[in-house]
């Protein structure tokens, strides 16, 4: 075992680092460990581009941000959580400014804000179009000044340690050496991000495998709202690289094969030459991605080597605006698509981007399992409901990272040290990993083909439009694939940086997540936000104004229950955009 810590964070991205600082500041005596399978500055927060929402304008109000978020989420957001979120977002963004984040500025030196999809006011703070990169590096560099934050860089967590009904640490593999260790702790915060790699075409980095969701699920915590998977409308066709929504908030057009701004046909408003808030290209992501599918069905998309696409036209913005506001868009288009957006249109199509669902938590990041907390994309509080608005996820990881950090610090300071039973579990887990994976030679199956089959199954059944029969088929198929996963053997038996071993463990995590998504989607017989059922095309508040909670049975099966949505001041209404 390693030495015991007070609070252990799994994941060193935006949420994890914010939580770590919150703990260090709330109680300097607490011993904090950040365990991450990559160096923290490699975490996927780094890829976030467009910005972070927080009310600062005099013409804006917290209630308007709350309403945009709640209507954007098709009334599945918990409104008490949204109220806390919009209130704390501006101060968290400001705190990051004090820590040195290079937010883009007005000429007089004040913070600048930009428009974003589904937002009625300009309230999105940005650092050009590398917002996540600057936030992550600011947070990481700031953590370096706290002696109480220990890091386990490139340690891969395989299991949570649960004893006496409480989470008391984790087991992890040090990738460099291959040693497997129990890391005891009085509390654990999961900050592992999303699970986009469950699908074949995603903006998500290779490391986004739903690790934390599966760890919590296996330890006995339920997953919430897993059927809500966000497709971002503008990804590059081959790579899935994200072209930020900021490209549209600066005035970009989405055009079909006839050069027509097709969103006007989907109840999103009338085309104006300049961007109009909550209208057309500044509509919410779910509606824009759905419009693409409808456009494709009408035969009005273009056809490329990687399937259908539409064009994102930025040419009228001019080189100066593109270079100052969207330099990364230009860099990515030039480098990866060989296209200069100053002169040419960018081919784009919808791409899996974000998980609205996640580990069920309360407003302080606490899961129903004592000692276990979660924050950021891995968690579902829920502020995002059935569809997250662009630029709400970065402030979310700050607000709820800090909240979870403070709550876990408070909890940990009242706990005894983890007992010997926890260490025995570590020994068991070590034996399991060695026996089932590292030393095994008799398996018939390989990691990569199984992963591909799982991803194809998810795309075919749990994409932008879904149906009961396709989802039922997917749950069967996933069960068969999981049987085959038992027969996986590795070609690599080395202890040193064994990435085939981690890929196999990640695949196993992704199966848990995929099954949770498919079962939740099958059970929700309505259409809401990002979950669109062709066999149940209407929203059904009578039956489904509720969060799904998936529990894992002892045999690995999924059981879906429902939890009412918290409504405070905004009764369910119609989502209106562009009118």
């Amino acid at each position: 075992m390693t030495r015991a810590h007070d609070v252990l964070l799994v994941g060193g991205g935006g949420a994890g680092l914010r939580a770590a600082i919150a703990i260090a500041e709330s109680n300097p005596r607490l011993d904090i460990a950040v365990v991450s399978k990559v160096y923290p500055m490699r975490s996927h927060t780094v890829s976030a581009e467009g910005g972070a929402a927080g009310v600062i304008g005099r013409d804006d109000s917290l209630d308007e941000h709350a309403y945009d978020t709640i209507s954007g989420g098709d009334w599945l957001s918990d409104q008490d959580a949204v109220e806390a979120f919009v209130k704390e977002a501006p101060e968290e963004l400001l705190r990051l400014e004090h820590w040195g984040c290079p937010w883009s500025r007005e000429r007089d030196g004040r913070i600048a804000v930009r428009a974003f999809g589904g937002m009625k006011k300009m309230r999105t703070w940005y650092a050009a179009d590398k917002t996540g990169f600057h936030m992550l590096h600011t947070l990481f560099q700031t953590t370096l000044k706290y002696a109480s934050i220990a890091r386990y860089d490139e340690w891969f967590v395989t299991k949570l340690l649960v004893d006496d009904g409480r989470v008391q640490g984790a087991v992890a593999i040090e990738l460099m050496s291959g040693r497997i260790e129990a890391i005891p702790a009085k509390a654990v915060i999961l900050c592992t991000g999303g699970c986009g790699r469950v699908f074949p075409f995603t903006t998500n980095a290779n490391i986004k495998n739903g690790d934390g969701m599966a760890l919590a699920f296996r330890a006995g915590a339920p997953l919430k709202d897993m059927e809500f998977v966000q497709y971002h409308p503008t990804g590059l066709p081959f790579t899935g690289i994200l072209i930020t929504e900021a490209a549209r908030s600066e005035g970009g057009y989405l055009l079909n094969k006839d050069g027509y701004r097709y969103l006007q046909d989907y109840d999103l408003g009338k085309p104006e030459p300049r961007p109009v808030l909550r209208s057309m290209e500044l509509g919410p992501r779910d509606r824009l991605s759905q419009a693409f599918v409808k456009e494709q069905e009408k035969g009005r998309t273009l056809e490329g080597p990687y399937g259908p696409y539409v064009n994102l036209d930025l040419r009228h913005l001019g080189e100066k605006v593109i270079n100052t506001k969207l330099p990364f868009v230009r860099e990515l288009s030039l480098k990866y698509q060989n296209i200069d957006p100053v002169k040419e249109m960018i081919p784009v199509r919808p791409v899996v981007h974000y998980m609205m669902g996640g580990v069920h938590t309360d407003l302080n990041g606490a899961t129903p399992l004592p000692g276990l907390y979660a924050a950021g994309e891995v968690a579902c509080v829920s502020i995002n409901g059935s569809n997250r608005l662009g630029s709400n996820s970065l402030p979310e990881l700050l607000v709820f990272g800090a909240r979870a950090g403070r709550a876990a610090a408070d909890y940990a300071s009242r706990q005894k040290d983890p007992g010997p039973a926890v260490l025995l579990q570590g020994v068991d887990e070590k034996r399991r990993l060695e026996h089932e994976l590292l030393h095994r030679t008799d398996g018939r199956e390989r990691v990569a083909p199984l992963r591909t089959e799982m991803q194809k199954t998810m795309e075919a059944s749990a994409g932008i439009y879904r149906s009961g029969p396709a989802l039922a088929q997917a749950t069967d198929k996933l069960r068969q694939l999981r049987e085959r996963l038992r027969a996986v053997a590795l070609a690599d038996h080395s202890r040193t940086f064994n990435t085939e071993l981690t890929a196999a463990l990640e695949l196993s995590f992704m199966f848990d997540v995929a099954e949770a998504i498919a079962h939740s989607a099958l059970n929700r017989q309505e259409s809401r936000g990002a979950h669109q059922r062709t066999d149940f095309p209407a929203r059904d508040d009578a039956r489904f104004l509720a969060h799904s909670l998936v529990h894992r049975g002892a045999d690995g099966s999924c059981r879906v229950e429902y939890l009412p949505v918290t409504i405070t001041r905004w009764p369910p209404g119609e989502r209106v955009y562009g009118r």
Partner: protein
Amino acid sequence: MPETVTLQVTRYRPEIDAEPVFQEYQVPLHADWVVLDALNYIKDNVDGTLSYRWSCRMGICGSCGMTVNGEPKLTCATFLVDSAPGPIRVEPLGNFPVLRDLVIEMGDFMRKLPRVKPWIVRTDEKPLAEGEYRQTPEQMDEYKQFSMCINCMLCYAACPVYGLEPEFLGPAAIALAQRYNLDSRDGGAKERREVLSAHDGIWGCTFVGECTRVCPKNVDPAGAIQRYKLTAALEELKGFLMPWRAR
């Protein structure tokens, strides 16, 4: 265009190999494939034992730096066709210990980084209620390019001084120190001076400029170092001429 290209990839498995060897793989030569796509093809279809780091595949996480045909590169941004017909040689980044195959050990940089205090240092912190520290776009331009460093280690791999003098702080760490020194909101330049002005700080650099040339994010570490040499020399002169003002 030929249909395939040969990759010559460094293999080093410390349990088996006494020293690194090259292994050849044939991979499809697609126009839009980067070197990283070829490595992933090998890993998934040919040889599951090949080890390397990668994550975002969009040139921002900094994980996938390797030596491609002798040059330090982000493999997610290096197209196969640019080296066609090949063979394409893929090796771990130079100047670092190799853990295995294409995976280097970068703990040295991670230990050096905190020494330059890459965070905002201020004696008087104003409350959040008083809002942001104003900073004009011009003030931001002073340090902005140094804040673009993704810690990919290409500059350390390219730096001949780091190759000979492992104690040298190195290009990225110095550029990040300057990122804060030049930030109008920071007051920590004095605290960073000792580390930067030491013989293994800026004075280690002989201004070869390779760091700036290989940087995939257009950061200019060589410029940061040269600029700081001037600052340090002036401070020293001030200390000599006006001892009451130094420190």
